[in-house]
């Protein structure tokens, strides 16, 4: 890791419980995320990892628990509010806008920053045209950063899986988030694609100081790039600490690493 400095706790989750009818997806989970760190969430299938991300950005509302983001106690919050506060994410199953080009997908990522009103857009006067140009510049930077210039005008539905994942990251980055939630960004990729993705994630963290919360199944990757790891199993937290601490935690080995290796 380079010179970036890990800061204060910016996201603090206390005793989170989430149920779907009788299914307990999360039970009494507490953990925190520090500014600028790469925080990994690991665990076997169905452990509640995706649910955890969904709680963080307001897609799911936990029945119990408290969430504190940047010093503010959060009440019930809708996902678009999380976006406004600078939380962006990618999905486990690619959730791109299939009918739109790469460029439009990434432009959509900047929607919270565009201020022109409806009439200005319809007539293309005032801010509307200016904004399109300004934001296009920023979007092109992201496109350059992720090396997807060549597919800029391709409808995303036609792209191979690995590139779609990258476009999804681009869309999230276009929002210039302060916190980025990544749900298995490397799933289904070959070794080379994984390496690229790792490099991009570390670069984002490094260059923009973006805090990253990452779900990943590949233990090698997790151990390599994360600062701290939280381990879930059957909706419960069974481990939390640096990669080394987690690796040597008996409960974790039994529940997870033992099965995976």
């Amino acid at each position, binding site marked *: 890791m380079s010179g970036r400095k890990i800061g204060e706790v910016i996201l603090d989750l206390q005793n989170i419980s989430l149920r779907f009818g009788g299914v307990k997806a999360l039970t009494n989970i507490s953990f925190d995320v520090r500014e600028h760190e790469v925080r990994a969430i690991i665990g076997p299938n169905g452990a509640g990892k995706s649910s955890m991300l969904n709680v963080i950005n307001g897609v799911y509302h936990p029945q119990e628990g408290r969430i504190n983001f940047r010093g503010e106690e959060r009440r019930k919050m809708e996902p678009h509010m999380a976006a406004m506060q600078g939380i*962006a994410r990618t999905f486990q199953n690619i*959730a791109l806008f299939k009918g739109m080009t790469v460029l439009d997908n990434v432009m959509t990522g900047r929607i919270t920053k565009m201020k022109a009103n*409806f009439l200005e857009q319809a007539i293309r006067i005032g801010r509307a045209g200016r904004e399109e140009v300004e934001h296009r510049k920023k979007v092109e930077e992201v496109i350059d950063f992720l090396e997807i210039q060549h597919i800029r005008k391709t409808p995303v539905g036609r792209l191979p899986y690995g590139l779609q994942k990258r476009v999804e990251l681009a869309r999230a980055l276009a929002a210039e988030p302060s916190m980025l939630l990544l749900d298995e960004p490397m799933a289904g990729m070959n070794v080379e694609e994984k390496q690229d993705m790792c490099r991009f994630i570390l670069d984002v963290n490094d260059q923009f100081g973006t805090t990253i919360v990452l779900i990943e199944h590949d233990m090698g990757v997790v151990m390599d790039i994360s600062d701290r790891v939280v381990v879930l199993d059957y909706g419960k937290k069974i481990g939390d600490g640096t990669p080394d601490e987690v690796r040597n935690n008996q409960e974790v080995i039994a529940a997870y690493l033992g099965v995976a290796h």
Partner: protein
Amino acid sequence: MFYREAGQFKTTYLADQQIFPITQDRIGVLLILAVAFVAVPMLFNEYWIKAILIPFLIFSLAALGLNILTGYAGQLSLGSAAFMAVGAFASYNFMLRVDGMPILIAFVCGGLSAAVVGIAFGLPSLRIKGFYLAVATLAAQFFIVWALTKFGWFSNYSSSGVITAQEMQIFGYKFVTAESKYLLVLSIVVLLALAAKNMVRSSIGRAWMAVRDMDVAAEVIGIRIMHTKLLAFAVSSFYCGVAGALYAYAYIGTVEPEGFNLDLSFKILFMIIIGGVGSIVGAFLGAAFIVLLPIALDVMVQEWLHGIFPPSISSNLQLVVFGGLIIFFLIVEPHGLARLWQIGKQKLRLWPFPH
């Protein structure tokens, strides 16, 4: 003349974001406008203008409205005709009840009334999708036509809800001739089409498409789903409402609520399926197709098949051909004529070299 992008490098984002980025497209659009505004009124006789071109333009506008809602925002609607009815009846009442109401303002008010009604009937879209939403808009279709018939106030207590459009007049100029009405309709349709094109290439259009393609992701990005969907209903209904007002004022003159029945809603839906879902050009192509097809079939039956089939068969033949085409487009080319048009352009771009 070659249709090429070659040599037209975009050196600024502004150039790349023009409304028609390819020079030939720009020329093409200007040419079409010139023909529509100058040549058509000189070349076509009154029958063509009155019975074919004016309804073509009006239906294009309605189809454009539906395409914003269904094609761009992904919300299926079977109530387009009802929103046209709201536009027609509201414009009529504004003209009737407000002294010195300018006709264009009455059209805008008609459109806005339709937008308000559209928002009300769009509320179920916040909870339900697809087929179920279509059923909810079907309810709008029946309810609106029923209400306009049932409550005499809307038609100023005329028998069976019929209204007769007042004379159109702008700054003392009376729109009586077919040409003048055509030019008025054309101007309105062109302006609204340009506005639609601007919307769909701005952030509001991207928000519509995002909600259409993946609503959870859209919300997570920061799009307010409710606001976005209801805006689509409002804009769509506004377009249908203005189309309805023009239908009454510039096309048939005397309308009753029943004239805006489910059949008409389906016709508009067919226009966007055939023309191209999610395409501005598609709305025009689809409307042209559906307005012209019955005429072409009539001619065919009378000229070529005369004696083989009785003339009464032509209307049934229409249904058969419609049905066949809808199935064809749904299965083979879901993007409709607009897509075929694009493929044609793509080929032209490479012509005369096959690859």
